[in-house]
């Protein structure tokens, strides 16, 4: 075989079947986001919507499969923002959820935390998917501060559970969304922007694995990056075009509202960088981009990079950076290798008398217990800066350590 005929993508090689994806929208907010997504028809990406609310489900016109959760128990009604009900419903609908969480190598969850269904069901779906040996990456929207302290608290509780169950959780705090909007932008447009953040994440990982690209990544190396779960996930997007394209891209990456964290917290152990660039990009340019990104975000990091050429915009660059941190040194329990143990765990989960919902989940999670302390500040963690490791500073249920302008929705122009 001539060198020039070597297959360029793993997808083309006969022994490796193409990676399959599934995007599941859970609960009201999660499925809304999914339904709003202008999903380009990506081959190998299935979509599904799970909700308890028959009416809400019926409204969606998206081509995704729709699943009404536990109609017998909930009667097609929503959980009314009660996470307790959400969890109960999830447990009751375990049988129904199990097949949904199969059939894909990578499962993306789209969920809005703070309500009932999303927060209750998503951790279970993630757990089931993990049992099926899928890589689970969740995009979790956190409520606006103005939605009230109750929702914020519920969201943080759910986030802790979700972090335990998923390989990576990318949080999209709605408060940050306000920072992105302009005065004249409508609500729908603003929300669409949040969806776009999610879309670009999905798209980046998809294109890393499925698109023919210059520098390739495979599923195994991606899994390696998500080897330790429960930690925070760094997520940032940037783009640039025209002259000074590299500087522009880096600047826009730095200013990404999702990077609302202290400089020190930006350093991660594993970096996944996806670059989608026009055909005009040069190797020195990629080199410049990558060396700055790894210096800025990596702490002696393991860098995974995927680059693909897209001729939609010949002189533009889009960068998506996903970073994960090893929590402690304990790798996650090997999955699928010990299905028996896993099942046993599940069984006890069901049989336990279950005093109160939240505790059940924590207790049955055996090994995860050790990490419990580390997640005390889940949720707000990305916006506390130098106060990251200090006690919550609560006044009227707001954490005063988080910037005032964020909590009050004052837009800061940069």
């Amino acid at each position, binding site marked *: 075989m001539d060198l020039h005929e070597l297959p360029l993508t793993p997808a083309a090689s006969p022994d490796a079947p193409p990676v399959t994806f599934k995007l599941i929208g859970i609960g009201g907010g999660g499925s809304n986001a999914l339904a709003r997504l202008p999903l380009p028809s990506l081959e190998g990406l299935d979509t599904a919507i799970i909700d308890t609310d028959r009416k809400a489900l019926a409204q969606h016109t998206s081509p995704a499969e729709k699943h009404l959760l536990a109609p017998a128990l909930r009667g097609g009604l929503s959980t009314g923002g009660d996470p307790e009900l959400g969890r109960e419903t999830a447990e009751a609908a375990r049988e129904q959820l199990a097949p949904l969480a199969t059939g894909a190598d990578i499962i993306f969850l789209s969920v809005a935390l703070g309500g009932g269904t999303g927060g209750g069901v998503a951790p279970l779906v993630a757990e089931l998917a993990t049992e099926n040996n899928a890589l689970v990456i969740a995009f979790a929207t956190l409520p606006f501060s103005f939605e009230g302290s109750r929702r914020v608290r519920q969201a943080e509780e759910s986030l802790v559970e979700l972090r335990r169950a998923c390989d990576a959780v990318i949080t999209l705090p709605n408060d940050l969304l306000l920072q992105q909007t302009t005065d004249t932008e409508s609500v729908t447009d603003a929300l669409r922007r949040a969806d776009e953040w999610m879309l670009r994440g999905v798209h980046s990982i998809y294109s890393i694995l499925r698109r023919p690209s210059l520098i390739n990544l495979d599923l195994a190396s991606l899994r390696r990056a998500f080897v330790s779960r429960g930690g925070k996930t760094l997520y940032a997007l940037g783009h640039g075009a025209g002259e000074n394209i590299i500087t522009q891209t880096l600047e826009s990456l*730095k*200013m990404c509202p999702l*990077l*609302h*964290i*202290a*400089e020190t917290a930006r350093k991660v152990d594993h970096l996944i960088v996806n670059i989608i660039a026009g055909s005009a990009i040069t190797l020195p340019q990629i080199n410049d981009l990558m060396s700055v990104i790894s210096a800025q975000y990596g702490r002696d990091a393991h860098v995974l990079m995927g680059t693909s050429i897209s001729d939609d915009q010949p002189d533009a660059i889009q960068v998506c950076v996903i970073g994960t941190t090893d929590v402690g040194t304990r790798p996650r329990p090997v999955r699928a290798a010990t299905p028996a143990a896993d099942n046993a765990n599940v069984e006890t989960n069901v049989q336990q008398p279950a005093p109160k919902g939240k505790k059940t989940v924590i207790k049955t999670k055996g090994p995860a217990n050790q990490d419990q302390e580390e997640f005390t500040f889940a949720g707000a963690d990305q*916006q*506390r*800066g*130098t*106060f990251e490791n*200090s006690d919550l*500073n609560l*006044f*009227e249920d707001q954490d*005063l*350590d988080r*910037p*005032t*302008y*964020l909590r*009050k929705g*004052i837009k*800061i*122009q*940069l």
Partner: protein
Amino acid sequence: MAKNFKIIAGVEIGTSKITVLVGELTSRNLTIIGKSECQSAGVMKGVIIDAKAASNAVHTALEGAEKSAHIPIDEVILAQTGMHLQGFKTDAIVNVSSASNTVSSTDIQTACQIALSKQLPENRTIVHEIRRPFRLDGQIIANPLNIRGNRLEANYWIVHGDTNTVTNSIYIIQGYNLPILDLGLASLASGSMVTTPEDRHHGVLAIDIGAGTTDYVLYRNGAAHVTGVVPVGGNHVTNDLMLGLRTTPGQAETIKTRHGRATLHCRDKTTKVWLNGDHGIGDRPIPLQSIEQIISARISEIFEIVRKKLDIDYTPENTPAGIVLTGGTSKLEGIVDAASKAFESTARLGEFPPHILEQLRAPGYATALGLLFTGASAARGQLPPKKGGIWGLFNR
């Protein structure tokens, strides 16, 4: 050899700085004879989180203070702040016992004792007991002794703190082999320096915005009425700037001191200031308006919280002497206007009484000065020793 003076030191273990002032106390007056200031460490939001680092810093400051005063310190008055402090009011009413209906000293003592007999929850220690003026048949009487009346009312504002947090700070001073003469509330100490007796008589609110905490005290009828701590200060302003403008903590601090303003002044979105000002690599223009938006949001929130915490105790009407600001963060441009707006009253920066030396007239010294001056009377042994509380812990 009994000396006829005592060397006392007012120590404030602050979030950004440790301040020690040394005073020579005679039976007549108090003279400041030494001072020392050093960078704080291991303190966050007014509370010691790293005892070792804090201890080293405090000991350096104490050493410097003794050097500057050329005499060893005898005793220390230590400021207390932090969100663990809480206050409550307590009162007791006694019927005047004597047949002639004149108040006896026993009546006063009984009323005070009953008012102070309230049990604290576990792990809480009394930091300060502030006696509000006595009331005799509902009338405010500063000294009711031998005055005719039926019902004597004693009122207290009691501030208590987490025992561990309080003892941590005490251990640090004791680690330098110095006894603690008294604990002082940071709010009360600085408030007593920047307000005049007339202000306090009419009603005034003194707010000390430091790096880690905001301490406030509301005076009424010549005495402290309510005190409180909001664990938010100048460091939060810096943190907000750092996050909002994506800078390093150092750059944010520079921006705060160089361009910071507590009110929205710049209406023009295009006015920009340089991040570092050196036009070097990494320097970039930042909209001045954004800086002001971030700071003003934080500062007005601090004032709003203070006002909310004071609740019905504060109204512009019952605080005619207005708001007095002090503390490091009060150096922020426009902060007086922000306070005036939030409290719907007049506001001004705190000024020191004329007897304070020129070089000590900085907002950062208010607390340490106040500790010495308010503590002086206790040091002269004019007040009876307190019962229970922290003293029960350490005098055993």
